[in-house]
């Protein structure tokens, strides 16, 4: 997981014209892509609450 601090550091150095290697930029993008792809794999949250069966006769 790429942290906000890591991203800000990258930004700071890029804007200050400090040397940031292509490998570093590429690694950041790949990490972000991996984070995004892992969200596809997470199962959908299901509620632990089950519906309570209702006796239809009680509704009439």
């Amino acid at each position, binding site marked *: 997981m790429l942290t906000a601090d890591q991203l800000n550091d990258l*930004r700071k150095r*890029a804007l200050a014209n400090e040397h940031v290697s292509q*490998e570093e930029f590429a690694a950041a*993008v790949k990490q*972000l*892509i991996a984070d*995004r792809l892992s969200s596809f794999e997470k199962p959908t949250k299901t509620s632990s609450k089950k519906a309570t069966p209702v006796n239809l006769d009680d509704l009439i």
Partner: protein
Amino acid sequence: MEFPRVISSSIRESFSRCPQKFYWDTIVGLVPKGAPSVHLAAGSAYAAGLEAMRKSYYSEGDYDKAIALGLQALIIAYGPHDPEPWETKTLERTIAAYVEHLVQYPPATDHIKPSQGIGPRVEFSFALELPYKHPTTGEPLLFAGRFDQLAEFNGALFIFDDKTTGSISKYWRQQWDLRSQITGYVCGAQELGYNVIGAIIRGMSILKTKCDTQEAITHRPQWMIDRWKTRLYYDVERMLDCWAKNYWPHQGEENGGCTTYGLCNFYALCTAQQPEHYIDVGYDRMRWDPIEREMKDS
């Protein structure tokens, strides 16, 4: 005061919305002081990232290099400004949109690719000579445009443009079917000899917790292009007429345009009896150059 030598879609849109707004932003050349609009900053940065990535990938084929150059271009284009905390389009979310594009449309398998000329036709520009003369220099007026790709899809040529938005509305696709900007791009490419049949618009919605994408394919038959040209000439004639009379109607007062897209940048001037007193306090003297694609001193 200066009449534009080049008319672009955004200049024309400004005039259509309100000639007085056009007077302030294009004729006088004013932009509000302070940080640029976050929507503009995020949209430009996203476009810069994709442009750098595509140019590199579709000419050299090196994925790692392309995605790196894209991120670098995006960060530099976004600049040092941080938006207000309640704004969505932060640098982090703009990068998330760039990443979402790479996930949804990896360049190796993207169904839309730039056509190839000397290199990939990414960031394609055109200029058309209009049958009108500049009111002070006498040179022909130009209509110019620039779009993201002259793209190939299913063996045909299309204009391709990326658009960022907040959320993708119910009629997001339909909005492109009549959009004058797109018709102008198709006309421009056709007049340069490219057999373009329509446009593909790829939308990216940048939200706080997710990004969504959608694509619209829209066609432009000849009758629609002819209609667009008639309207363009009509608008240019009205611009020249306003210049000749030095009268710029406050159209926003009639159509609610002063608050349609947030508060108009020139609200403070139009609500003042003597607007010239407020210019130097609230505005920088700059105007957009549609050919150079940058702000210049006015």
